[in-house]
């Protein structure tokens, strides 16, 4: 049978998917054991029990000075920034994206502007944000929003413009006004795509969050990682990276489920009836 036609079943898909993860994990455990047997104080590749202890301490024991449990205060601070930043970007993608994609005069006015905005490297703007908005929350949230909004706006504008002209003509022959078409035709049709856009932009959003936290912050997941880097505390960094990964995967999964349950028409196969 040709390679392109040999489809793995459910069980073997799972096994195949786990394989690279297990391989990397195994390689790490082996390398860590090697280094630790040569030098028990080695900090570069801590063993899994060492990391688990460090993680547990961060997740359960209050820090001496502030009394905060660091993992939770870091997570909360980071998620708040991420949530507000991504939320603002999503809202602007929805409003501006639909306006640009649907109303020719607005497209002519704002289309080129957003196109230019979207090619500015956001991190190059970070110093400007720090200078203009200070080192507080505003600049970090703005970086996230500014970093992902232009791409999302263009994505939604494109999806709006892709709505078959037949549907738009049909709506008008049924007497729909521009506003009626926006809320009854365009909005419902781009919402599933909006969720996809959010899922795709969560990666860059985390990048901007951690970059901003690394440079100027007093708490947050990115701040912690860059802080303990000075002590080569790999036993903290690695669990934090895994934790961030878990959070990101969880968000992606929730958004995917949300799309299937809220927009069954957009997922004719997954929803199944």
């Amino acid at each position: 049978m040709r390679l392109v036609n040999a489809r793995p079943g459910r069980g073997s898909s799972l096994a195949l998917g786990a394989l690279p993860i297990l391989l990397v994990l195994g390689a790490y455990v082996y390398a860590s054991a090697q280094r630790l047997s040569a030098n028990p104080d080695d900090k570069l590749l801590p063993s899994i029990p060492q990391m688990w202890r460090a993680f547990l301490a961060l997740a359960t024991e209050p820090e001496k000075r502030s009394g905060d449990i660091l993992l939770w205060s870091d997570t909360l601070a980071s998620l708040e920034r991420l949530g507000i930043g991504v939320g603002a970007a999503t809202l602007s993608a929805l409003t501006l994206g639909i306006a640009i994609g649907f109303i020719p005069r607005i497209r002519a006015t704002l289309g080129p502007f957003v196109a230019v905005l979207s090619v500015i490297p956001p991190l190059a703007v970070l110093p400007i944000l720090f200078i203009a908005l200070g080192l507080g929350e505003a600049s970090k949230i703005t970086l996230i929003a500014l970093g992902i909004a232009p791409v999302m706006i263009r994505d939604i504008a494109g999806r709006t413009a892709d709505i078959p002209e037949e549907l738009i003509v049909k709506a008008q022959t049924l007497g729909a006004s521009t506003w009626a078409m926006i809320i009854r035709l365009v909005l419902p049709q781009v919402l599933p795509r909006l969720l996809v856009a959010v899922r795709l932009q969560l990666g860059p959003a985390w990048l901007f969050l951690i970059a901003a936290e690394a440079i100027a912050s007093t708490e947050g997941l990115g701040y912690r990682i860059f802080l303990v880097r000075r002590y080569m505390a790999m036993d903290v960094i690695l669990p934090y990276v895994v934790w961030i990964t878990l959070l990101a995967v969880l968000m992606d999964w929730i958004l995917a489920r949300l799309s299937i349950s809220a927009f069954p028409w957009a997922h004719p196969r997954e929803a199944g009836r």
Partner: protein
Amino acid sequence: MSRIEVRDLEKRYDDAVVLERMSLTVESGSFCALVGASGCGKTTFLKIILGQEQATKGTLTIDGAPIAPEPDPDRGIVFQRYSVFPHLTALQNLILVADFKAAGPFARTFGVRRKEARVDAEALLERVGLAHARNRYPAELSGGMQQRLAIAQTLLGRPKVLLLDEPFGALDPGIRGEMHDLLREIWDETRMTILMVTHDISEAFKLADRILVFDKIRRDPQAPTAYGAHIAHDVPNNPAKPPVAGDLARVARSLGARDNHPHQPEGESP
């Protein structure tokens, strides 16, 4: 009343002339079938009637008034594809018509009017044989069911003129027959003016009381877009009777023979 008058209409895209010197009067309540070779401008003509495209020259009036330069409820349309809204169930697709009429900030009917709209929609679904599928999304309907839904939706808009662009082109012959019966019933009842584009000559003779054959005015083999199409043959028909053999042959010839015997451009003797 919905009499369509076309006077000396011309449509060009840049240098390409699609329609040219087109004049036509369609009486109110007439059912015209539009036939012609692919690419000769039938869809373009419907788009101009819809107001989706503007004529380059000439006038087009319905009941003596120039048509609005954008689509409106006077003119209903059923396309071959993308004719219903994919994010709404069959029932919601029909209630949407009342919602659009209600307008307002939510473009939605509420209360008693919503109940009425629902009753109307359910009755119409029953009528077009989709009652059992009321809660299905278009992607879960067959092609024939989607087109029935599209026709029902368009009827709810109560257009003066019903335009159909190859509405049954993608359906198999059995379903097509059912659709013909439905369309015939609707026409008998409402006596709307109907213009239907089709590639199926037997369909045209079965349904229409007038067959309009689109063809180029002249043909220049060196410049295929130099001349536009107009109505080359205007064939009356009685859909209740079998087609007159001579008429059938005339339409078939004008459609089929063009590639074998290209007309010579004027001013150039053969």
